[in-house]
């Protein structure tokens, strides 16, 4: 039943587009790919991704990795305690920073959502406001807070919180925009006011999304709290970068393994929380 060449010719004559893109489309595709690959190759060249350099780096990488076995085991309880304290501090600061960021960002996010705030200029100003916050280098934020509050965890927490405000508001308002209109219509059709349609129609839809955003960011704040090192409040990130600058690779690996374990634990716990708040059925979907 394979078509004969004549069949093919005939079909091609009738439906040329089903066989080949139009020259314009083809040209665009080729141009895009050439542009992309060209840029990529130029970057490879510009950033000096030379094969021997890569090989060389891989060897060093191998040496660093070899320090993983056996992992470093600290001998005294005091040293272990130091690591655990640093881990604990980091989690606590990340938690605090995330919660504070969340509290501020939640109301702000409504102003930035197209389906809630219909006033164009207000929405745009709010959105650009999020951009301003996100453009602040977290390091600069830390310095601002150090001058005001001195060295210590407070400055670090506030730096995390402020940078989180920018991220959360942006992600939250996008979540708000991605909701389905149907439940809203259902509420409006029953005589609900605009406010009620948001509360009953939109909020139940976005809360699970918000929750996963918050938990995900909490997790990444645990990682990014290197900032605590800058403000002199310790934390695991500081310990880690100190070990790296001192070439204590074996300790570096042990710390990394501990961070991974901790994040894994947080992941697990947040899975439990999510399951509890959202319900297993939907998690499984």
């Amino acid at each position, binding site marked *: 039943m394979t078509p004969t060449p004549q069949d093919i010719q005939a079909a091609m004559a009738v439906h040329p587009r089903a066989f080949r893109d139009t020259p314009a489309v083809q040209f665009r595709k080729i141009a895009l790919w050439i542009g992309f690959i060209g840029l990529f190759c130029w970057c490879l060249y510009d950033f000096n991704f030379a094969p021997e350099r890569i090989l060389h780096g891989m060897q060093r990488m191998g040496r660093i990795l070899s320090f993983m076995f056996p992992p470093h085991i600290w001998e005294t309880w005091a040293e272990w305690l130091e690591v655990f304290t640093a881990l604990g501090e980091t989690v606590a600061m990340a938690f605090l920073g995330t919660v504070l960021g969340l509290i501020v960002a939640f109301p702000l996010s409504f102003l930035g959502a197209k389906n809630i705030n219909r006033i164009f200029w207000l929405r745009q100003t709010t959105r650009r406001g999020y951009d301003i916050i996100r453009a602040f280098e977290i390091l600069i934020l830390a310095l601002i807070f*150090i001058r005001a509050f001195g060295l210590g965890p407070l400055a670090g927490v506030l730096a995390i919180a402020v940078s989180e405000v920018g991220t959360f508001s942006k992600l939250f308002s996008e979540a708000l925009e991605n909701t389905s209109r149907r439940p809203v219509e259902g509420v409006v059709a029953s005589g609900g006011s605009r406010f009620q349609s948001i509360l009953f129609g939109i909020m139940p839809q976005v809360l699970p999304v918000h929750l996963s955003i918050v938990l995900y960011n909490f997790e990444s704040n645990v990682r990014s709290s290197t900032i605590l090192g800058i403000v*002199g409040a310790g934390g695991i990130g*500081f310990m880690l970068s*100190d*070990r790296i600058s001192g070439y204590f690779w074996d300790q570096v690996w042990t710390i990394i393994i501990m961070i991974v374990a901790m994040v894994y634990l947080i992941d697990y716990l947040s899975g439990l929380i999510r399951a509890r708040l959202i319900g297993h059925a939907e998690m499984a979907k």
Partner: protein
Amino acid sequence: DDWKKDYAVIKFGILSGENEKDRIARYTPFEEYLEKELGVEVEIFTAGNYDGVIQAIGADQIEFAFFGSSSYAAAYTGTDGKVEPLVSRLRQDGSTGYYSVVVTRCDSGYKSIRDLEGKVLAFADPDSTSGYAVPYFNIAQEVDPKSFFSAVPFSGSHEAGVAGVAQGTFDAAATWQNNEVDGRWQRMIDKGMIEQGVICPIWESPEITSGPFTARANIPQELKDAVKEAVMTVQDKDEAAFKAMTGWKAEDPNPQTGWIEVNHERYQWIVDMRAWLKKQRRSS
């Protein structure tokens, strides 16, 4: 004392030093020692980055800080001279600092910087005092690094630079040593990362004085004196705290044994060096 009413809480900022030993030193015993000696509350903040400590001292948020020499200079310019160095470290052999060195492969036959014309000299990383600022500044007094060498790349770290020289990637690299037997490259030999007799230093900088224990200038003189006194005598009064804060190790051939008093003059050349670097940047 009068100052105790105004300074019932004294805050210290501490930078993990250039020296890898300092990075895992612990200051809790020292904090307790100071509280006992001074009779006031002491809070110590260990930071990994000097920008924060400089801002804190400039904003009157902390009273004292352990700086590296280069970060002291930064604090000095950053606060318009509102800092005052008190004491610095003294080692067993009487040295009070360390040196920046340029190393090459021993079999290359290079004897001085002049021999390196057209070669590759690797610096450690742009933030390093001994691996970049000092050698660059000093070498630039002799030759123009940009045109004299074929390239002056950053290797990323002292260790990477030295290893690069051993493997032939670089012709020379800048790193540091405390003396002929102790330094970055010697320790790499001890760890078995490079062979004995492969690496030879061909150039040594003036002494880079160890960083000073520094006070904010605008605090009462009595407070400065009291703290200075306490620090100067810590090795006698509380040896455990001293060993913990200096990262003392039994196998260390040349551990820190005490302190010497210092003044700003000692660091002026580093301040000048930074000014020079800044000017270089402005003019480029």
